[in-house]
């Protein structure tokens, strides 16, 4: 275990300062939208990373929890007038509970078939929400009631308020990841990720660990779902359980550095800025261009730098360290 060094702490503090001040300095509403998007998908990536990065349980169905969180808070708000702040936590709890039967089913499979099973569960949830119209508006979805500026109901007139909310979520996600990474749980997870059978052989209770991390990952993802609904004012099954959300959560983590604390954040920044630049250079003239570029980046990472951007940065840093003279 390495103790956090002073340089590391200082740089994190500096980063935090910049990030906190950003919306006050940048006035462009569009830019703030981009920041919000980056923060949100960093958060989703961090949540995914707990399962997929550390424990190497590669789920492509996290949208299931995103959607459950979104629907829980919206149902509570529209039907009972309960604040989405509470609804957000409730959504997290619902997601946690849902992860138990889903996990029980999916963990019976290993490797890519686990992945397929997770895709199937998100799809199944979407189908269920599409079918049961009386329960949750079905296919048409609904907009959240227009309350103007209502901070207690998670609706703000100022775009920057949304920024701070999702920043807070990301901070929570990073803090939890850091805590787990440095704890005994973190080691067990990495062991399971490397070789589950070997880990079990030395006494790690793999099923229990996997269950626990899945619950945490699901909980966090659901919080993101609630935020997202409050931000775009709308929810429907296709959006809430969208496969694209599952993909992006995993994508940013892999590109950024799977199984690292900052990986998802760096990955999101890279992918989102690429996307925005592409859009402004080429306009939206070519449908499919953005994802084509994303997939090429992903393939490049997989083929040449599977450790992602974080891996590249750490390697570069190591090389820099090694070049220093004077080894006693």
């Amino acid at each position: 275990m390495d103790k956090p060094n002073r340089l590391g702490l200082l740089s994190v503090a500096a980063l935090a300062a910049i990030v906190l001040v950003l919306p006050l300095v940048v006035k462009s509403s569009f830019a703030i939208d981009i920041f919000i998007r980056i923060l949100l998908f960093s958060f989703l990536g961090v949540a995914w990373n707990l399962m997929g990065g550390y424990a190497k349980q590669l789920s492509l169905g996290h949208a299931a929890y995103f959607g459950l969180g979104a629907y829980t808070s919206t149902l509570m708000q529209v039907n009972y007038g309960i604040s989405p702040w509470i609804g957000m936590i409730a959504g997290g709890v619902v997601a946690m509970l849902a992860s138990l039967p889903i996990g029980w089913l999916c963990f019976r499979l290993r490797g890519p078939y686990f992945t397929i099973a997770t895709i199937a569960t998100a799809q199944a949830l979407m189908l269920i929400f599409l079918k049961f119209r009386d329960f949750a508006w079905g296919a048409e979805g609904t907009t959240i009631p227009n309350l103007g500026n209502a901070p207690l109901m998670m609706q703000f007139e100022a775009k920057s308020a949304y920024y701070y909310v999702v920043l807070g979520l990301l901070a929570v996600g990073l803090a939890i990841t850091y805590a787990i990474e440095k704890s005994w749980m973190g080691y067990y997870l990495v062991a399971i990720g490397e070789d589950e059978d070997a880990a079990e052989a030395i006494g790690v209770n793999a099923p229990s660990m996997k269950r626990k991390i899945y619950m945490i990952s699901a909980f966090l993802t659901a919080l993101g779902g609630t935020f997202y609904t409050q931000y775009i004012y709308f929810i429907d099954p296709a959006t809430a359980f969208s496969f694209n959300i599952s993909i992006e959560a995993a994508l940013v983590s892999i590109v950024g550095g799977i199984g690292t604390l900052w990986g998802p954040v760096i990955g999101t920044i890279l992918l989102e800025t690429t996307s925005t630049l592409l859009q402004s250079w080429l306009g939206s003239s070519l449908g499919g261009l953005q994802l084509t570029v994303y997939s090429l980046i992903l393939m490049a990472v997989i083929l040449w730098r599977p450790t992602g951007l974080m891996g590249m940065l750490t390697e570069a840093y190591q090389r820099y360290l090694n070049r220093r003279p004077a080894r006693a």
Partner: protein
Amino acid sequence: MLETVAQAVINGLLIGGIYALVSIGVTLIFGVVKIVNFAQGEFVMIGMYLSFYLATQFGIDPIVSLVVTMPVLFVVGVLIQHFLIRRVLGPNDMPQIFLTFALSLLLLNLALMLFTANYRTVHTSYSDEAFHLGGLYIPVAKLIAFAVAMMLSAALWVFLHTTDLGKAMRAASQNRDVATLMGINPNRVFCVALGIALALAGAAGSLLMPFYSAYPFVGQVFVLMAFVAVVLGTLGNVMGALIASLMMGVAESLGIQYVGADSGLLVVFAMLLLTLAFKPNGLGGGRAR
């Protein structure tokens, strides 16, 4: 009443044949190379567009164009194995999963860029015709597709069980290390496996053209069913994938008929989940992977 059931079963079997072509490819790759090809659906799509092109430019009937799409996709398969997949084969699952996944995204979006989202349809003389037997109807195009799919599956089975290369593939599938020790070149075997699997996907695409429309997302529609069939029929088991595909086609059809028109997929998922609950390795049994 009986007529309705019979018709539903026939419908299910016919589409099941297409599912089979796609899922056999996936299970073959999985059995031999031990990776999941998430991009299999996109190769079906490529097969469809290729057939469309041949039909509209040269007037070649899509079913006839099999003789072009299959070899072309075979070569594509070999290239993909040799240059891409070979580099990520190793103990770690993650690169393998995301490589083919990225490939799927790439192909789909390239198609979207190159061909736009417009639907492409080919009308042949038999496209909308059907045989009528009693009160039952059997669409001509689908029957041909089913027949060809079964023939290709049979041909594959013969290949795997009688030719040296086929046996080598089965050996590598059962135990890669021992197979290598016995002088089988894994990469060569993998190339053939990829080639065959993609050729089958291309065949599915060509066979679909007379009665289905090509568009960039078309692969996604079939690939989900294919994956479920692979799991259901046990990973790596070609015959299992075939039977599971046919079963799923029928289950989907009956589900739509008797549970609800939007419940076809749900019934299939239910079938999958039930099977996994009691037989985690699928209907074919076998060791846990």
